[in-house]
């Protein structure tokens, strides 16, 4: 018989501490759908997605019921659409086909309206990027991402410039809906091919034809575990986080292997991320505060986050046969109750968030900026963040939302997992325009002589 305390611990994690499987994401390659006639390509895209993912949502729900563990999202990631768009035609037709597939399969997001342009644009890339504002405005459940830099190739500043404009246009196109288009658009440096989390998920070209990834969550569980140790030193806290991350990840591994078995699809990876939600008790910021910071965003936040991020990975790696994705702590501002409070009170500033991204998973995520922020400043924010990722050989991303018509201090409301939050202050007194307008490429960094 299983130990009673172990059973109670698991039930408590689920019922009181918001433990859940954040997403089961099916990665589907669409490479075999591309053709010279875009209309038939779109039909093949729709057919393949609906065929492969026909039972995805039901399987997720069945597992949820049998195992008693909430599985919040069922999603799909696909081959970057720019690769299909290379054959010509209006990429928006693909966006519409993907939306139809999302409606038919019942998934809440399809990610992969994407382009990989870290070294330059190839056929289809630029057309796809220019179609992003429209694509995100006319669809509900499609996510877009663009990779503009990597450690091996440097940063494509032409793309950075273009993405600054694209982010602004996306906000303008969806200004009537609190600029929600930008919540579905991520700009990456060192994007990963097997990320199950939105909005940055796409199915990399090195992946198998069809694969199932799982993204776990559980900031509340970590916080609750740390609460039981108010006086331990930081080494002890790291141990507690490791142990907790191990348990969370084991659950993800179980659900992932079970889903792959039932769907008859290869199992990909577990992404062992601490992904917060706006719900109380599901916040990464509150973990940092539990460690001893009066509020998230003050001095000491970067160090605490570094400890947390590393311990999560160490604990999780042993628990899964295959760890991948973005694995680490996420710090999306509008999706995290503690971050929202810290941003509202002015304790958490954009500059501190940028520093935090150097030591944790992903980057400047879900940050509302004033509507007056010009495209070149958004490009400069993207360039700074990409530089951190490029030099530190890690994934970084920017998902900022220019709040058209609103100023710092006002709020945006997205609802659901995307949350809500205050518009953060951006330094707009001086302009980076001349730097951004130079465009070109920032060369790849030296990988030795590290200081």
């Amino acid at each position, binding site marked *: *018989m*299983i*130990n*009673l305390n*172990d*059973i*109670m*611990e*698991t*039930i408590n994690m689920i*019922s009181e501490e918001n433990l859940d499987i954040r997403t089961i994401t099916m990665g589907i390659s669409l490479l075999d759908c591309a053709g010279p006639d875009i209309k038939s390509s779109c039909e093949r895209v729709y057919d393949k997605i609906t065929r492969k993912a026909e039972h995805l949502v039901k399987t997720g729900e069945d597992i949820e*019921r*049998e*195992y*008693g*563990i909430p599985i919040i999202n069922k999603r799909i990631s696909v081959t970057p659409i720019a690769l299909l768009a290379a054959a010509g035609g209006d990429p928006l037709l693909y966006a519409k086909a993907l939306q139809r597939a999302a409606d038919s399969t019942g998934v809440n997001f399809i990610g992969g309206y994407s382009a990989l342009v870290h070294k330059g644009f190839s056929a289809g890339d630029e057309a796809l990027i220019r179609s992003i504002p429209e694509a995100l405005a006319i669809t509900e459940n499609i996510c877009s991402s663009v990779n503009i830099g990597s450690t091996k190739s440097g940063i494509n500043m032409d793309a950075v410039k273009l993405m600054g404009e694209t982010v602004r246009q996306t906000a303008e196109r969806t200004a009537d809906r609190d600029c929600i288009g930008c919540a579905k658009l991520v700009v990456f440096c060192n994007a990963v091919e097997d990320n199950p989390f939105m909005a940055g998920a796409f199915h990399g070209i090195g992946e198998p034809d069809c694969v199932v990834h799982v993204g776990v969550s559980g900031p509340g569980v970590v916080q609750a575990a740390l609460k039981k140790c108010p006086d331990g030193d930081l080494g002890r806290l790291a141990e507690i986080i490791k142990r907790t991350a191990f*348990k969370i990840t*084991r*659950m993800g*591994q*179980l659900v992932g292997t079970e889903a792959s078995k039932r769907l008859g699809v290869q199992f990909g990876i577990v992404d062992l991320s601490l992904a917060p939600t706006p719900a109380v008790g599901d916040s990464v910021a509150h973990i940092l505060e539990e460690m001893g910071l009066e509020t998230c965003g003050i001095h000491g936040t970067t160090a605490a986050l570094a400890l947390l991020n590393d311990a999560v990975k160490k604990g999780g790696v042993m628990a899964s046969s295959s760890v991948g994705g973005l694995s680490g702590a996420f710090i999306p501002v509008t999706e995290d109750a503690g971050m929202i409070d810290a941003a509202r009170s002015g304790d958490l500033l954009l500059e501190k968030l940028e520093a935090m991204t150097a030591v944790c998973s992903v980057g400047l995520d879900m940050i509302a900026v004033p509507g007056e922020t010009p495209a070149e400043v958004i490009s400069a924010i993207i360039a700074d963040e990409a530089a951190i990722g490029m030099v530190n050989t890690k994934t970084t991303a920017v998902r900022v939302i220019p709040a058209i018509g609103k100023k710092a201090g006002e709020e945006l409301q997205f609802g659901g997992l995307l949350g809500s939050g205050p518009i953060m202050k951006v330094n707009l007194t001086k302009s980076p325009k001349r730097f951004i307008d130079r465009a070109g490429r920032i060369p790849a960094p030296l990988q030795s002589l590290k200081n």
Partner: protein
Amino acid sequence: MKTVVSVIGMDAVGIISEVSAVCAECNANIVDITQSVLQDMFVMVMLTEIEELNCSFSEFSDKMKALGKDRGLDIRVMHEDIFNSMHRI
């Protein structure tokens, strides 16, 4: 396949009997029962074999949930693997 039926709530007369009655009604074989009072809460855990269920797993689970609702108890039916994988290496 074995499932863990967990019952948490205020102690009262007849809880085990009623949960067992649902098991019998659905032909779920009880393999083990542990019960305890933790922090003033009645906690009972029942390990059941459900290979021979005369209804679907969902119906079994829903019946337990309905009973829980009637009696003001938190009753969950969960596959035992979730506990095995989390707490055993």
